[in-house]
């Protein structure tokens, strides 16, 4: 087969700041490497079950060799270990991205609070509070950013599962997690269009508009709170990946555990994916609130 996701990934220079571009690059690399680990585990398991047949060699051999992996049980296991170490490194980088995002949001929060307060003072001093202005529809925007994601958080798949085989209903958990991931994707798609539509304008007084702007500021802060929760969840994913990495290297997970390892990796990937997707929703929401409130302040 041509591409199993194990071809050498070109490490790009990190982008400037805590940008969407940087998140995209990190995210795609992590997802690709999760797929690579899962695929290598599955191939390893296939060899165990059917042997290194000519069909398997033809199908995946060139891909494995071009990635510098020896096409043997030992070689594949080494490949899995290397890829997993790589995932752990990148998840750590993702954690740093979250920290940077937090700092950047705090700066935005302070700047927006300042602008809002200044404008309120100015409007009070000018005595123009009841003057009519045309501003973006804050209520419509608030409705868009208030769309909630699934509340119930499903358990993270842990190393204990892999070692003790203690989770019986793994398929059901996968399916449920997959549903949650799809819901978040749908929210992203829906709110994207609604967000654009919510920028339409209404006529109101400066006083009411500034009040609405304060409401958006409140939603912005709520979004920051959700982002804090996301970063806590990302920390859990990182800790989980770290545990798996330790277990692989200390031989707690052995070469013949690849079938179970593939199952666990699918679940860890799902946990990771869910956190990143909801972070995207929350960050998009805080950005929408900020753009909205600054537009109102500007127009008052």
């Amino acid at each position, binding site marked *: 087969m*041509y591409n*199993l996701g194990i071809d050498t990934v070109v490490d*790009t220079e990190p982008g400037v700041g805590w940008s969407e571009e940087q998140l*995209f*690059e990190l995210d795609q690399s992590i997802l690709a490497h999760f797929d690579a680990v899962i695929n290598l585990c599955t191939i390893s398991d296939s060899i165990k*079950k059917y042997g290194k047949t000519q*069909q398997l060699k033809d199908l995946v051999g060139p891909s494995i060799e071009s990635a510098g992996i020896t096409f043997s049980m030992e070689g594949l296991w080494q490949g899995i270990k290397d890829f997993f170490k790589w995932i752990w490194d990148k998840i750590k980088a993702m954690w740093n991205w979250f920290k940077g995002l937090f700092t950047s949001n705090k700066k935005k929060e302070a700047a927006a609070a300042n602008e809002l307060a200044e404008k309120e003072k100015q409007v009070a001093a000018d005595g123009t509070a009841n003057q009519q202005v045309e501003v973006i529809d804050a209520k419509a925007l608030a409705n868009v950013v208030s769309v909630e994601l699934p509340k119930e958080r499903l358990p993270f798949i842990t190393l204990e599962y892999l070692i003790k085989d203690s989770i019986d209903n793994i398929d059901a958990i996968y399916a449920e997690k997959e549903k949650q991931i799809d819901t978040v994707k749908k929210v*992203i798609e829906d709110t994207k269009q609604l967000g654009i539509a919510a920028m339409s304008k209404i006529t109101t007084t400066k006083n009411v508009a500034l009040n609405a702007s304060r409401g958006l500021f409140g939603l912005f802060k709520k979004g920051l709170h959700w982002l804090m929760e996301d970063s806590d969840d990302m920390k859990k994913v990182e800790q989980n990946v770290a545990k798996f990495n330790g277990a692989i290297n200390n031989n707690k997970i052995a070469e013949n555990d690849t079938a179970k390892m593939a199952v666990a990796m699918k679940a860890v990937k799902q946990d990771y994916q869910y956190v990143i997707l909801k972070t995207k929703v929350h960050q998009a929401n805080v950005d929408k609130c900020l753009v909205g409130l600054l537009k109102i302040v500007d127009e008052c």
Partner: protein
Amino acid sequence: MYNIGISTTVVADQPTKCDISKLMQLSYELESYFDAVLNLHAINESLKKYGKTSQLTDLVGSSFESAGITLSNEGIVDAIKDFFKWIWDKIKGIWDWIKGLFSSSKNVADKAKQDADAIKSKVNETDQQAASGYDDPKTHMNLLRSFEELQKSFLIINIPDVKKLDGMFKELETRCGAIPTEGMTTTAPSNPHVVEVLDKIEVILNEMIGKIDDISQNHVNISVSPRQASEIAQRIAEALDRYKQIPGELANKIKQLERAVATAERLFSNNPDSEKFKTQATNLKRVLKLIPVLAKMYDRVQALLVKALAIIKKEVGA
């Protein structure tokens, strides 16, 4: 096998602006579709040669099932045809993105010209005011005064070192020029060395992007008269005016690539087992991967120049 690239593509939050992450998303999806097409092609070959063995079914069956594809020769051929429809959709998306870049680059260049003109006017105005203050500039006292004024009027500007860009472009040209590219053309990327060559080019481009980021972040202090600052601003505006042509060139490349995709599709329709199709699709995938890197470099250079111009404008007080 869990993921052979035929699972539903992740839909990320696509920003509404004409920004690089949107192009990266489009390019990534396009690349995944080419992976899927190539993987399906390989599985089809395996199916024909060895049959639908248990090993193959175990390996790829669940992926096929979740993507709604039948694990048979006919099922795979149909799926590849479907993937081509999505490939065309994404290429259209990239084309639209480039069109957006074209108009935003024009706006950036126009704005830069306005800023550079505003800087020039401000400097001229200041010069005239200064000149009108001296009755006879030839007298010793007035010469001394004008010298002191001139010294005072020198500006220390903390700015990205835009001169370094020239050196960087020369290095880019030399290094890319040193890569042997015999027999390679953009319109017919069927040369077996395409992947190898483009891998090398991508590494160089990424290094250059890193250097641009360094220039952008590590400012230098320059001491210039307001007139010299205005001349730098004019040159930046001229550079941005030249750069606005680049999206047009990128758009031409996309048109050429569209023809190459049409060739790949035709090769497949004529013969699903075609080896030429496989090479064409492999190389196309690689070529397409380079587009966001090129756009990223363009974006970074543009942002750097705009940033430098804004600093000059502020320092001159225009």
